[in-house]
């Protein structure tokens, strides 16, 4: 089964970190990533740029409405995700707990549907 681990954290806190602290956090992510890849659990993922760079698109009638910023304003924001291949959601949660942001933010674990198309 495939799961997405959506990583939520305080992006202002991240932006306020000095270069050494940022490098230390990046090193924790590299360690997690290496461990997950060696275990063949992590199969993908992306690090997202700050929500200040987000663009949200909606179409209403024939009109395309483009707004700056994320679709929802949250105190802790989505900063990226890992794609996890696990036998169960419990196993995915135990991997999620190892993601560095789990210790100050939160990781939302969601099963991936194999069927294509919407709605889901």
């Amino acid at each position: 089964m495939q799961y997405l681990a959506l990583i939520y954290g305080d992006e202002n806190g991240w932006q306020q970190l000095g270069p050494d602290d940022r490098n230390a956090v990046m090193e924790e992510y590299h360690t997690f990533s290496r461990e997950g890849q060696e275990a063949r659990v992590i199969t993908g993922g992306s690090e997202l740029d700050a929500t200040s760079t987000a663009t949200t698109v909606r179409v209403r009638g024939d009109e395309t409405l483009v707004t700056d910023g994320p679709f929802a304003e949250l105190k802790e924001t989505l900063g990226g995700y890992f794609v996890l291949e696990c036998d169960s959601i419990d196993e995915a949660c135990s991997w999620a707990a190892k993601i560095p942001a789990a210790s100050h933010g939160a990781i939302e674990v969601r099963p991936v549907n194999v069927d294509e198309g919407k709605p889901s």
Partner: protein
Amino acid sequence: MKYVALLTNLQEDIDRWAMMTPKEAQAVRAEEVPKWEALFGELGPTGALGAGFELDSPSTAKTVRVRGGETLVTDGPFAETKEQIGGVMELECEDLDQAIAIAARIPVVFRASVELRPVIER
């Protein structure tokens, strides 16, 4: 440039789908299929579409926090919002305008939204 498109659904629609019989849900899905096929058919050959993930409904989510060495797992999504992420598509685009043009054709965009975020490549 790489972008991630976060596909959202209205929570009220998600609630409505959950109340449907499998047959009704199938019928709603079937209506959307041609739109998805058109999108994939047209954009597939351009190389703009990377990996995509359709997520199970937010009610199936678990949220994990670690505090003081203890792992806390709660049922449900991280946040209760009017729109909820229902899928993720990775895009390879020339620029934001191209990403917006693609987003404007993703079927969820007509009722909910598509959030585009640049990907940081290290």
